């Protein structure tokens, strides 16, 4: 039996970056990325540049209550582009008592899974929401998700699971990733909250088992995946 050595994917490179100040502008940028010559066309005879393919397997919404969470999560997600490309929406809030504003950075990172393979690219959208808009997470995230792909919410820190804002967001999500090690207080109460979440939304979602995401989650050791759609939610939440 022979084994062939498969080199690891290349480091992701930033191929596109743009700023926007409204959801409509972000949408316009997202469509511009794939229309741009630089991303999509290979010049005849040129061997160094491969066709960029847009390959997303899911929508990943990261709710970062603190800027350092946002950076850390974005860096982790970028590392996963080759293995597990996803449209990532990182939402940060700032100045919750001020007027509403939005600042967005749209990026595309590309990797070559193998040296001879075409490049694959995925988009990351960093959103900073000022004022009250930061409390309406579903309104911000829903317009930006890719249709027909599963939605995962990654919520580092202590998610306020019973708040209306979280409920709206999670009702449209298939899975929730949390980091139980940072929680304070009564962990059991938290688990109960999450179990209730799984119960209430189970009927809405019919995503099948979905192993790729687990491979992705393994890198951030302490996170647990809560599949909102399945009966196992309470069990997998309790396992770590």
């Amino acid at each position, binding site marked *: 039996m022979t084994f062939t050595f498969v080199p690891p994917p290349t480091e992701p490179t930033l191929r596109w970056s743009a700023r926007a100040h*409204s*959801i*409509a502008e972000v*949408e316009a940028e*997202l*469509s*511009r990325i*794939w*229309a741009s*010559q630089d*991303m*999509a*066309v290979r010049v005849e005879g040129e061997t160094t540049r491969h066709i960029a393919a*847009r390959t997303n*397997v899911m929508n990943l919404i990261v709710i970062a209550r603190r800027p350092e969470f946002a950076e850390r999560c974005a860096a982790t997600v970028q590392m996963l582009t080759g293995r597990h490309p996803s449209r990532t929406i990182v939402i940060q809030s700032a100045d919750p008592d001020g007027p*509403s504003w*939005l600042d967005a950075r749209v990026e595309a990172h590309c990797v070559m899974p193998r040296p001879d393979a075409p490049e694959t690219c995925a988009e990351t959208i960093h959103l900073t*929401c000022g004022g*009250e*808009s930061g409390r*309406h997470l*579903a*309104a*911000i995230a*829903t*317009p930006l*998700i890719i*249709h*027909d*792909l599963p*939605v995962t919410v990654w919520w580092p820190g202590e998610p306020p699971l019973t708040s209306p804002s979280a409920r709206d967001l999670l009702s*449209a999500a298939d899975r929730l990733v949390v980091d139980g090690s940072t929680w304070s207080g009564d962990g059991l109460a938290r688990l109960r909250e999450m179990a209730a979440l799984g119960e209430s939304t189970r009927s*809405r979602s*019919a995503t*099948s*088992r*979905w*192993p*790729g995401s687990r491979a992705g989650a393994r890198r951030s050791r302490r996170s647990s995946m809560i599949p909102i759609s399945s009966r196992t939610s309470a069990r997998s939440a309790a396992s770590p």
Partner: protein
Amino acid sequence: MATTRVKPKEAAPLEAPADQPIPAQPSPRPKDAPLTMKDLREARTGKRPSRAKPVENVLREGLRLERVPDPSIVVLFGATGDLAHRKVIPALYHLWRTNLLPHEFMLVAIGRRPFSDESFRAEIHTALEKYSRVLPLDTDAWESFAQRIDYLQMDFDDAAGFESLSAYLDKHDKEHGTHGNRLFYLATQPSQFAEIVAQLGRVGLDHELHEGGWRRVVIEKPFGHDLDSAKRLNREVGKVFRESQVYRIDHYLGKETVRNLLVFRFGNGIFEPLWNRRYVDHVQITVGESIGIENRGAFYEQTGASRDVLQNHLLQLVCLVAMEPPATFDANALRDEKVKVLRAISADPTGPKSDVVRGQYGPGWVAANNVPGYRQEDDVDPESETETFVAARLTIDDWRWSGVPFYVRTGKRLPKRATEIAIQYRDVPHRLFKDEGVEPDPNLLAIRIQPDEGIMLRFGAKVPGLRLDIRSVTMDFTYGSAFSVDSPDAYETLILDALQGDASLFTRADEVEEAWDIVDPIINAWAEGPPPTFPNYEAGTWGPEAADELLARDGRRWRRI
């Protein structure tokens, strides 16, 4: 053969009355008598065709050069209005800029506000800087385009005004060589359509001339506000113009992906065999808008989602998805098939299991903005019962679609602006992988009309690894990345079609009436029933819960868009 007839060599001489001498020559043929085949042949031989054929440029052969329309004048009624500024004039400018309009072209803009030619051109320039698809403006193209815009101030009920318009156009025909070809574009309030058409007829502007010189009329939507008013308007227009001269615009039909739908279905061999009740479980069509009513409260109060979108855009999309292949790509063949679909559509708006759900948005958050509810908008009754959302379960009772529901929905203040058609295929007949504990999702074909026009096919694939695991993957085709050219605006496509006399993307009189025949009973049922409990959905959500129940009842759900 027993029944063979032998033609006499010469016609039998006519019997002359006894008191008159027999004429030496046979009497001349009556003017309208048909020629015999022999006469016909003899008349043709040795004769040259009466008119010299236009010389074709041989270098053009085989090239896909767009045909430029005939020299013509576009007469735009309601030129000072919003639609003209936002859509019609920018579209004409782009056609001009890309050399798709003839050199002998004139735009006669008619409005009620006082403008000189110069001040109107300046106004249009400002509008173009705001609404043009390509910016900055091309100065040379604009200069030459502006030369061709004239402004006429006129009241639409002013009889004398139309007489002078007629004389004015005749004068222009002579000066600019536009050969009497005229396109009348009605971009006014719908209540004025009938009046303008009647006036045009009164001064004879509808008459097509013998030596070329076509006359066409483009009528904007909404075409009527119910079946009766649509019939009445059709009758008024029909008194003046023949149906072949009438172009009723539904700008959705000019969109690139909508036209591509025809190519996708009938230009490919592999989809049409799967396009029926045997393979399709159901169809979902969403026309979602994230915007509200945008200062058009007074208009929307009288319209509502069912008249504004369901009657025209949504039903047109249903027609294009459900119609049979037409025999030719000819305007009437295409529209015949669409009318057949409309006749087969039914929806029961009454009873507890109504096929129709309506909604109205309350205050909420849409894309990082706090927005007011419908009843709090300007010019809206605080107790308004106007629907801003409508969802329906349509059944099409024909051979192809019997038992396949078409779920359609449209609304204002939904989470995102998205227009999509989804063909949901049936489950596999036999679950081969059930012992492995995996169940692939059924296939889905999604046709996205806006934004990011494209087509997506979803199918199951094995996840690499030692276990058997199936994941849904998608094949995506996006216009933006596949073709590096801009799609034209729907209005550009449609105006060019009208100038070229191609009516396939315009709605015919019977089509409009059939569509109202579907929407009318829905509105009537609402009018007869108890008042609705509005608002029933929060701005920024996918409509009222009843819309979800409409599908849940059949064990289905709306796709996540």
